[in-house]
């Protein structure tokens, strides 16, 4: 997957080496976070639009106290158009079964976006509560609550698989 970078504005801003360096560091994690939050369908568009936003006004955004938090919020808003729909997550590949229950995917999709993000990034990809909170724009304790509720729901729905 690669991010679409749509506009001339973005192309101009991408000439700035600070922007390029920032985005090359930032983009892989943003991609994972958006995948968890809204599913894979809108990830490329949201990343492209976020990058265009950054390139449109790099000086002001880079001067912010927390540019990453700001860009996370922009990306989240871009992906929000579909957030009330159930995201279409890829099915569990045959090679991963039976250790991973196929029912995990629909159960993950039924979680609220914040719960799914906390579970997917926290349990799945090893993000810290602080990092997840930065993406969601919430506190560490709230992320922990989302995580616990999400894990409880998953456990309730699919249980655990015999190894």
């Amino acid at each position, binding site marked *: 997957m690669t991010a679409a970078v749509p506009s001339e504005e973005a192309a101009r801003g991408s000439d700035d080496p600070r922007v390029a360096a920032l985005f090359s560091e930032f983009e892989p994690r943003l991609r994972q976070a958006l995948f968890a939050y809204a599913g894979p369908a809108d990830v490329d568009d949201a990343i492209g639009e976020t990058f265009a936003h950054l390139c449109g006004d790099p000086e002001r955004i880079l001067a912010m106290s927390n540019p990453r938090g700001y860009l996370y919020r922009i990306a989240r808003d871009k992906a929000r158009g579909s957030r009330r729909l159930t995201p279409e997550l890829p099915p569990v590949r045959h090679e991963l079964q039976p250790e991973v229950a196929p029912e995990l995917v629909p159960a993950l999709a039924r979680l609220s976006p914040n719960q799914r993000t906390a579970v997917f990034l926290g349990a799945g990809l090893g993000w810290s509560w602080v990092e997840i909170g930065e993406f969601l*724009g919430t506190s560490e304790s709230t992320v922990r609550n989302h995580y616990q509720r999400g894990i409880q729901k998953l456990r309730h729905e699919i249980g655990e698989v015999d190894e």
Partner: protein
Amino acid sequence: MIAIEDQVRRYATDVAGPAIAAPPADLAQVGSHQSHRGRWLLVAALVLFVIGLTAVAVIARPTDESEAPSVATEPPLPQVESIVSRAVGTGACTADGSVTGVLLEGSAADGLCVSSLPVPEQGPDATRVGIYQNGELLWSWVLVPCTNPDFQGKSPFPITLPDGEYVMVAIVPSEVSYVVLDNDLNALAPNYVPSDPGPDVGPDPGPTAVPFDVDGIRLGRLAVARATDVSDVASPARLDANRRILPMRADMIACTNN
């Protein structure tokens, strides 16, 4: 048994790639060559700027949302008009007409109705607010004057409508002009009395309501917001006209008791 966390880990790394090391805390520094001294000066300048803004906000003490100071460090996000306000008039809350009130949601709600009855033994302004659906009382509160910042003026559960959507009913302080009821704001709304304006909620913060006055309720206004996803409804947060979260000050808040 494979723990659920381990299943999630195997699946997540398969579909979203392996864990990636966190980037530097301050992305603004990536690719730049500022000195440590420069960085500290920048931080100090930002701190002074924020303190200055805080002082201005405290001195100004805005009562009108349109006068509220904004956080100037970030560009504004585009605004989207998605305000909903739900009240269609007065009528009977119960089939026998013994309780009257404000009808909400019109025909879509099949008789969602809010009643208000005085409770003189708890004070001259005390009011029992009841929520009825199809003539049945779902919940009621007694609203009394209070300076307790523990703001819980909301229905304790989303009410399911016949069309499968949900509404949350909230009693908010009279000064509040816009309310957002969105689970994303859970961290900010309950027990929430910040001293400064909070973050912008973005162009799509979820169901937003314009509170309205109800005859007989002097301690607050009614806000009703609709959502398609039950996980989206939560405690109310106060917004200004630019959809920026504002303080819900203790002196604005009434108490509710079940």
